[in-house]
């Protein structure tokens, strides 16, 4: 799965508007960003990419771009 394919799934679980979401979208500014959304991202990444994200690493992410960064090469280009 490449980044373009992954982004709509991510937008859905973090309840962001895919039309306006970008890598600079600040997670704390999303209206429903909370521990449940963090957990949903972990589940999504495991199910779609087979990666068990480290919760501490994910919790430090401030933007959508930083989530993509920790996925690194797991996302095809």
């Amino acid at each position, binding site marked *: 799965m490449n980044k373009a394919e992954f982004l709509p799934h991510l937008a859905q679980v973090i309840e962001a508007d895919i039309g306006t979401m970008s890598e600079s979208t600040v997670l704390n500014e999303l209206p*429903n960003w*909370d*521990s*449940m959304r*963090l*957990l*949903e991202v*972990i*589940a999504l990444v*495991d199910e779609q990419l087979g990666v*068990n*994200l*480290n*919760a*501490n*690493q*994910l*919790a430090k992410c401030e933007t959508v771009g930083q989530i993509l960064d920790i996925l690194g090469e797991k996302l095809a280009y």
Partner: protein
Amino acid sequence: MSEESSLAGYVEIVSERIVDRMRLDQLEIAKAPLRYGTDACCLVLADSTYTKDILNMRNSDLGAHMNRIQVTEEKHERWLASRLALPDILDFVVLIDGKFGGTASLTEIERGVKCEFGRMIIPNDGRRVYTLAVEFLGMSFAFEVLGLEEIYCAVVEGNDSILRLHLRHGWKLNPAYNRKAAVNDRMARLVGLSISRKEWPNSFAGMKKLVRRLLDKDTAPALT
């Protein structure tokens, strides 16, 4: 398989490490090494073993909706001892992969009727993703082990993420439990919520997939 019977089966798996399926009136709380959950995440009856962890958490900044206070070890031990003597309170610590992650309490326990549920998970790191597991374990313990009919809680008005978490998982606003309390030198409105035993199977069905992920050591989100 009905939802109720599948729920019962899952709770049985989750509670495999319960020392005994005891009712509250049979518990010797001060002695019981009660552990409810799995190696990935469980509740353990609070005792002095966890004093330093609890103090570190309680004396840190837990956000705008929690009282910012400083508690000494001596004061905490006195408080814990007074609580252990009371028959209507169960104080737990939350262990995530064997390490301290927060606290959970069942208070005002009316045998066979209802209790208040409160929990505090360390908010500033990845441990907070386990909030849902703690919510599940507390509810499961109250309904399945203690056999209560209703659980209630009160959330500081404005603490939208916690309010949302409850509403998403079957809790309903219940004005009977609204109250006011001093939070950081101001009077705050606490929004009352409750959930009944009848609503619990549906609540569980909605959270089951994610709870299973959190409680299974093979899929539980890593912290180190």
